[in-house]
């Protein structure tokens, strides 16, 4: 899983390089721009089509002390917001030429204002993604937001909007998401063939390297996983929910599986596999992006889902996946996840499905406590 074009190193090493050396190397090689985006959703295809490299920021990978961001953000703000701002204030994101924010939560939305004041040289774009997804008027609004982003990108990269290029980018991203779906299928059917940690790293590395390169990496991974003859092992099948934005420490992901769970479905790095089906490759590509966002977004805490609430969807998934239980794995102070948790655990209780809630934050380094929690959870399922 190395990335030789970026100077070697496995995904873990590339991701641990907070100065984004892989991105800097790409920029030097291509002479093009890099545009950061705060998770979860960003119109990646559009950024790609207009010549820039979309780079997802996930904070400090547990490696940095917060020295400067504490004077800009209060104590009750999640790790990813603080550490991302810290990286910016200490010059480690200077490789980025722009940043895209969306209305995933109040913190991310307000961070966009702090960002544009502190980094005036960077292009900062805030997209208001529609929440009233059932209103016919949401289509025109979203199309106009995407055109606004496109105009900003053109000013930054000099590459104008071109439907043919956007269609090509959509096809490339569809290919990437299709490969991810095949790995999801492996995780669902024979989770022993690909560990949760390896899957997680494969997903995450796709947020900083060029998509073309990621597709090649995934092709190898899919071939290996699908052909795997690893011996089946026992484990409690769980769905992990709540890690859609700030990511859990890798150590925690490992501990969950070592404690006896198979994470057969999860919402890690959700923005990389936002859609429930491929984005339409025929017709107007901008309209295709709009339709996909409004009609084919995976249920997540950052978006309203109209008449089909997320808690009902969760119970349906739990049944379809023959789960032993649900593991809420949420970032400390993450309001969207914490609100959803209440309705979702109520729905699980009503359906008789076990669940456990584990909280994490970036600076967490010891995992004994969550491991014990998960072990107890596993035992309670096995012996009930």
């Amino acid at each position, binding site marked *: 899983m190395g990335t030789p074009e970026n100077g070697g190193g496995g995904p873990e090493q590339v991701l641990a390089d907070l100065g984004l050396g892989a991105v800097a190397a790409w920029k030097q090689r291509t002479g093009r721009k890099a545009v950061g985006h705060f998770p979860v959703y960003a119109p990646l295809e559009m950024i790609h089509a207009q010549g820039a490299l979309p780079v997802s920021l996930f904070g400090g990978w547990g490696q940095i002390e917060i020295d400067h961001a504490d004077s800009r953000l209060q104590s009750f703000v999640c790790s990813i917001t603080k550490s991302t701002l810290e990286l910016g204030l200490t010059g480690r994101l200077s490789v980025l030429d722009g940043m895209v924010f969306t209305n995933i939560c109040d913190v991310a939305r307000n961070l966009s*204002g702090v960002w544009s004041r502190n980094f005036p040289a960077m292009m900062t774009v805030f997209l*208001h993604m529609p929440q*009233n997804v059932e209103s016919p008027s949401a289509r025109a609004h979203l199309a106009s937001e995407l055109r606004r982003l496109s105009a900003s990108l053109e000013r930054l990269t000099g590459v104008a909007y071109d439907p043919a290029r956007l269609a090509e980018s959509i096809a490339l991203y569809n290919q990437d998401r299709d490969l991810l779906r095949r790995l999801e299928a492996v995780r669902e059917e024979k989770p022993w063939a690909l560990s949760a940690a390896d899957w997680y790293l494969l997903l995450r590395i796709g947020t900083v390297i060029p998509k073309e390169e990621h597709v090649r990496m995934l092709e190898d991974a899919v071939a290996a996983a699908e052909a795997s003859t690893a011996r089946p092992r026992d484990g409690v099948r769980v769905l992990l929910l709540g890690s859609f934005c700030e990511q859990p420490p890798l150590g925690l992901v490992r501990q969950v599986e070592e404690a006896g769970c198979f994470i057969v479905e999860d919402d890690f790095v959700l923005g990389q596999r936002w859609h429930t089906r491929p984005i339409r490759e025929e017709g107007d590509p901008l309209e295709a992006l709009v339709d996909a966002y409004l009609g084919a977004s995976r249920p997540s805490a950052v978006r*309203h889902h109209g008449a089909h609430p997320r808690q009902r969807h969760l119970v349906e998934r739990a049944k379809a996946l023959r789960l032993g239980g649900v593991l809420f794995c949420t970032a400390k102070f993450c309001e969207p996840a914490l609100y959803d948790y209440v309705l979702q655990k109520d729905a699980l209780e009503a359906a008789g499905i076990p669940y456990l809630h584990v909280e994490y934050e970036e600076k967490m380094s010891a995992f004994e406590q969550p491991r014990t929690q998960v072990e107890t959870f596993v035992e309670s399922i096995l012996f009930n």
Partner: protein
Amino acid sequence: MTAKPEFRDAAKEMQKEMLARYYGALSTANEDRRPVAYLFIPGNVVELTTATGFLPVYPEINALQCGIKKVAGDLILAAEDKGYSSDVCGYVKNDIGLMLKDRQHPWGQIPKPDLLVCNYSGCNTFIKWFEALSEFYGARLYLLDIPYVRGDRASPSDIDYVVAQLRELTEVCSSVSGVPFREERLREILEQTRRAEDLWAEILELATRRPTPFDSYFEAVFYMAPINILRGSPECVEYYRLLLEEMRHRADEGVGPVAEEKFRVVFEGPPPWPHFRAFWELFKKWGVSAVASTYSKVGGLYDQGVRHDPDRPLESIAEYTINCYTNWNWRMRSDLLKRYVEHYKADALVIHSVKSCRSFSVGQADLREQFMHEYHVPTLMVESDLADPRYFQEAQLRNRIDAFFESLQHQRMVTA
């Protein structure tokens, strides 16, 4: 000279009676079979729901009243027992707590909703809040999506987007209440709204006087109650007419909220409702008067020219919903505060940062940096909460506030 009793209480007495009547109507609304719509304060569309026969319920108002009446703590704990985290909004938990306790509120029983209108203006938590109520009450939810202001004003396409949703919403309202929508009725209500807005804006402007006739934070947040709760009614207009008279009288007599106005400050952020009096006292003793505040604008930036307009009913409602303080981006918020400091000739900016409301608070520490280092405006930032009594550390707050005003006083002496 402090306010003499004859100036002080006429509007306040009227407000008490108005609120008692409002909560009285609420307490029998379900049995009277009056349709009930739940709304949020910032950017609400009460004129539309009133025109289609609904009584409005404002969960934020219910929560702040519980804070003032010191019953919020138990309600918040009840919601935490249900699974709500200690890290989420205290207003939400207060409201869920009320629901769990048969909606028994200090002012009377709150009715169940027939319709939830999530006027999603400036706060993502609003969505989570009404999604939960929709699940718990089985009530229909309409999510009115209000775009966050991205440039330096609401764009025409944003206004179109909101107007299109408002047209859908009128149909939803009528279908739930059974009362057909008539534009003429809406215009009548909007006319009352506009009159109250004009009067309230005129009152707020009186704080330019020295001394300011009223405290634009600690008193204004009370005086704003009728425009937030009873907007669109003739009695609301009457209230602000009376208040304007009272405030003009105070101004002419040189009467203000503190014995001697020593410091004029601008306040940013919501107050700590459960400890409102204690918090005010910490400032009063330094002779501090607020001359402008942002919290008194959460229900509408009327002082910035935002108005409902009976001649442009839906368009003006859309403009109003978009132009709510917390729906403005940080550059706009910061520019507004700078204008306040200049226009009202303030000596300092005071930021009260609350954990519950990230929409208000995230970015305030950066604002402090900007005001201190870029604008050279003395700025104090203190933290507690608007709803949760557990976050109010009085001794710590007193130390910070005393140190700040001591230093301002000292600077004044050395530069005099």
